C-alpha cells in the first residue's frame, strides 16, 4: 500500500515494522509527531517521559531487557540526553536501540541551530540521515539491524524539512521480533573504570568495522551523471542539489557517521570538480578534506540557516533567478493566542515592573512587545537557576524585583532541580509556574501533571504543590492569572518575602477548550482611546483610525480586556 506520509509518521511506521516494543520521548519541534504516531500502534508501548534523559534511559532499559526500543527528541533534547548517550555507546545494546534526533536548521522553532552530527562523532555512534519519508521508514528498519549486528545504539538524524514534509511511502508488514533473552552481563553493562576501559576498545573496533562496511552499504550510493560536477550530500541537502542539478554526479550518503572513505575516494577520482553540500556545519567536508581530497563546500555555502535548490543552482551553476520580495511589509511573528492564560500574569508583571528570567514554551513569546515581560530565554529549566544566580550576583534588592517564569511541563522537565538549588543554597527567588495543564508550544501533549498518558490512560496527576512543599518551599500560592488584583497582591507579597516562594498561575491553555466563546463588544462612546487594552498584546484587539475594534472571529471572549478597561467600554455579551 502507498501512502502520503509525514517524515515523522514514517519514522513511527518504520519502528512499527521493525518490531519495536517501546517508544519514548519528550515533545520538541520538529520531532514531536514521531511518538504521537508510534503511540497509535497497539503493539508499541509509548510514553511521554519527563525529559529526554529519562526517555533515553527508559529506552536503554528496554533494550537491555531484550525489546527493540526507540527514543525521539529535538536537537537540544539530545544535549539533555547526552550523558546516557556517551555511555550507552560503550555498553552497546541487547535488542536494537535507535535514537532519533531532529535538527532545526534555520531555527523555525528552536533557540539554536546546533548540528547533531557532532554528537555521533563525539559519542562514536553510527548515524543515518534519511532524505524523504520512504527513506525515513527504511532507515529505521536498517538502523535496528545495524544496532544488533554491531552492538551499538544507532542515531537517526532528521531536519525540519524531512520531519515535516510529506512524501509517498510503501508500507510493509510488522516483523515478528521476539524478546531477546535477558542476561546479567556486568562486564558489558556495568560501566565502572575497569570494565569501561575494555568496552572503549570494543567501541573503537566497532567503529572501524562500521567504517569498512559503510563502503558497501546500500544507503551510500553513487549516481553517475555528468562527471564535470560531483556532489556529496545527504538528507534534505541531497534533494535540493538533485532539484538544482539533476544531471550532475552524486554520492548520496545515507550514513553520515562513520564515513565510507573508500567510496568517497573512488567517487572523487571519477569527477572533475567535487562539492560537499551540507546544511549547518562542515562535518562531512572537514573529514573528506582531511583525507587530502580537494573539495568545495563552505567556501560557497553558509554554515547558518537552510540551503535551497535556488541557492545551489546559483552558487554552483551561476543560474540566478530574478526574484524581488515585497519590501517593508509589517512582520507577522507568532503571538500568544487570544484568551491565552499567560497574558494576565504578564500584564501584572509589566505593571509592577518586575524583571523575569524566562524559559522555553509559548510564554517565551511574552518577551515581544507590547508585554516585554521576560528578560531571558536560554534552555529548558534555566529560568529558576538563572534567577538564583542573579540574586547571588546582585543581592536581595535586585532579586526582590525579579521572578522566574516557567511552564508546568518545563518545570517538571528540569525546573525542579533548579528549585532544589534555591532552597539548599538559601536563595529567596520567587518562581512563577504558568500552569496551563498541557505542553502548549509543541501542540498540547500530556505530561505527568495532566493526569493522562500519551496512550490516553488516566493516571493520578503529579501534585505540584506537594512536590514543591516536599523540597522545602514553605510558601506556595495558587492564583488564577485572570484575577488581576489577586495576582498583583500575591506577586508583591511573594517577591518581598525573605525566603523562596512559588506562585502557581493556574488556567488551562485557551486552545484546550472546544466550546466556542462569545466575543466581547466595544462601546465606542465609552472608549476614550487610552490604549490600556492594547498593552495586553491580544491579537483580537485592533486599533483602527476611528477607535478600538475587536476582531470578532479572533476574540476568544476571555474577558481579560474587559477587566483592564477603566471606562467600561468593553463588554461581554449579556453583561
Amino acid at each position, binding site marked *: 500500500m502507498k501512502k502520503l506520509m509525514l517524515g515523522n509518521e514514517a519514522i513511527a511506521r518504520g519502528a512499527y515494522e521493525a518490531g519495536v516494543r517501546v517508544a519514548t520521548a519528550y515533545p520538541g519541534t520538529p520531532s514531536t509527531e514521531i511518538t504521537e504516531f508510534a503511540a497509535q500502534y497497539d503493539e508499541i508501548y509509548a510514553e511521554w517521559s519527563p525529559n529526554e534523559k529519562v526517555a533515553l534511559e527508559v529506552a536503554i532499559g528496554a533494550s537491555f531487557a531484550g525489546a527493540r526500543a526507540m527514543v525521539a527528541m529535538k536537537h537540544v533534547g539530545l544535549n539533555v540526553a547526552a550523558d546516557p548517550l556517551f555511555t550507552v555507546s560503550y555498553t552497546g545494546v541487547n535488542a536494537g536501540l535507535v535514537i532519533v534526533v531532529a535538527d532545526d536548521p534555520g531555527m523555525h522553532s528552536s533557540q539554536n541551530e546546533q548540528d547533531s552530527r557532532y554528537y555521533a562523532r563525539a559519542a562514536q555512534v553510527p548515524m543515518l540521515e534519511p532524505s524523504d519519508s520512504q527513506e525515513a521508514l527504511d532507515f529505521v528498519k536498517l538502523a535496528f539491524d545495524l544496532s544488533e549486528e554491531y552492538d551499538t545504539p544507532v542515531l537517526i538524524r532528521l531536519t525540519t524539512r524531512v520531519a515535516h514534509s*510529506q512524501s509517498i511511502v510503501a508500507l510493509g508488514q510488522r516483523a515478528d521480533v521476539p524478546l531477546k533473552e535477558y542476561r546479567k552481563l556486568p562486564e558489558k553493562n556495568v560501566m565502572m573504570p575497569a570494565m569501561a576501559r575494555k568496552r572503549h576498545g570494543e567501541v573503537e573496533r566497532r567503529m572501524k568495522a562500521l567504517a569498512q562496511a559503510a563502503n558497501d552499504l546500500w544507503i551510500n550510493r553513487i549516481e553517475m551523471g555528468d562527471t564535470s560536477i560531483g556532489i556529496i550530500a545527504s538528507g534534505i541537502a541531497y534533494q535540493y542539489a538533485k532539484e538544482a542539478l539533476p544531471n550532475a554526479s552524486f554520492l548520496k550518503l545515507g550514513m553520515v557517521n562513520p564515513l565510507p572513505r573508500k567510496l568517497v575516494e573512488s567517487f572523487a577520482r571519477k569527477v572533475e570538480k567535487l562539492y560537499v553540500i551540507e546544511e549547518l556545519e562542515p562535518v562531512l567536508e572537514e573529514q573528506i578534506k582531511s583525507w587530502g581530497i580537494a573539495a568545495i563546500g563552505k567556501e560557497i555555502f553558509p554554515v547558518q540557516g537552510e540551503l535551497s535548490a535556488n541557492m545551489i543552482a546559483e552558487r554552483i551553476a551561476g543560474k540566478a533567478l530574478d526574484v524581488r520580495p515585497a519590501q517593508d511589509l*509589517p512582520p507577522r*511573528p507568532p503571538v500568544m493566542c487570544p484568551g491565552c492564560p499567560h497574558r494576565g500574569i504578564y500584564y501584572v508583571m509589566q505593571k509592577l515592573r518586575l524583571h523575569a528570567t524566562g524559559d522555553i514554551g509559548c510564554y517565551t513569546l511574552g518577551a515581544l512587545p*507590547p508585554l516585554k515581560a521576560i528578560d531571558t530565554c536560554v534552555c529548558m529549566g534555566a529560568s529558576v537557576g538563572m534567577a538564583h544566580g542573579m540574586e547571588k550576583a546582585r543581592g536581595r534588592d535586585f532579586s526582590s524585583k525579579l521572578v522566574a517564569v516557567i511552564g508546568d511541563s518545563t518545570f517538571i522537565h528540569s525546573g525542579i532541580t533548579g528549585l532544589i538549588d534555591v532552597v539548599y543554597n538559601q536563595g529567596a527567588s520567587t518562581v512563577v509556574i504558568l500552569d496551563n495543564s498541557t505542553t502548549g508550544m509543541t501542540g498540547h501533549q500530556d505530561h505527568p501533571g495532566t493526569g493522562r498518558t500519551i496512550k490516553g490512560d488516566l493516571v493520578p496527576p503529579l501534585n505540584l504543590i506537594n512536590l514543591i512543599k516536599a523540597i522545602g518551599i514553605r510558601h506556595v500560592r495558587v492564583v488564577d492569572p485572570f484575577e488581576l488584583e489577586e495576582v498583583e497582591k500575591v506577586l508583591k507579597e511573594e517577591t518581598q518575602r525573605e525566603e523562596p516562594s512559588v506562585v502557581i498561575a493556574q488556567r488551562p491553555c485557551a486552545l484546550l477548550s472546544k466550546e466556542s466563546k462569545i466575543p466581547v463588544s466595544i462601546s465606542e462612546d465609552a472608549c476614550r482611546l487610552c490604549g490600556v487594552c492594547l498593552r495586553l498584546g491580544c491579537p483580537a484587539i485592533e486599533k483602527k483610525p476611528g477607535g478600538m475594534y475587536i476582531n470578532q472571529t479572533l476574540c476568544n471572549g476571555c474577558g481579560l480586556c474587559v477587566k483592564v478597561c477603566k471606562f467600561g467600554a468593553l463588554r461581554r455579551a449579556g453583561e
Partner: protein
Amino acid sequence: MGVGGQGTLLASRVLGRLFVDLGYDVKISEVHGMAQRGGSVVTHVRYGTKVFSPLVEPGTADILLAFEKMEALRWIHFLKPQGRAIINSQEIEPMSVIMGEYEYPKDLEDRIRRACAGAVFFDALAVAEELGNAKVANMVLIGVLARLLNTAPEAWEKAINAVVPPKTVEINLEAFHRGYNSELS
C-alpha cells in the same frame, strides 16, 4: 499561505491527496509546532512524475493560494512569471500593526496585481460565514482553485472526503461547491 489557524495545512493536504489519487509523485512541506495562533504560515505542495525537493522556491511556483491578503504579497515573489494567484480578500492585522509600529498596507491589491496581473481576489470568509463556519473558508478557496484549473469536481470531492475530519465532510464539501460555482472576476 495564510495566518496560523486559518486551515492552510488542511488545504494543502487535500491537494496532496488529490495529486496522489491522480497518480503523481507528491511532496508537501508543512510548518508545525507553533500551536499559537497568528504567525505567518506557508505550506508547499509539489507534484510531477518525480519530485526531489519538498520546497517551492522563489520564482518557481505555478499557483499561489493565499488565505490572507498581506500574506499573499509577502509570498508573491514565489510565483513564476506566468504563475497564477488566488487570494482570499480577508485582512488580518499582525501584532506589529496592532501596536502601531506599522500600518497595514492599503495598496495591497495594486501591488499584488503589479506582480501578478491575473490575480483573482475572492471573499471566501464571507461565503464561509454564510455557511455558518468561518473555518471552511479554506475549502471555498480550494473550490475556486478547482474551477480555475478547469478540472471536474469529482476527484476533488474524493480528496476532501479522505482528508477532512469525518464530522465536517458535509460542510467542507458544501464550501468547496460554493467556491467552485462562484462567479469569478
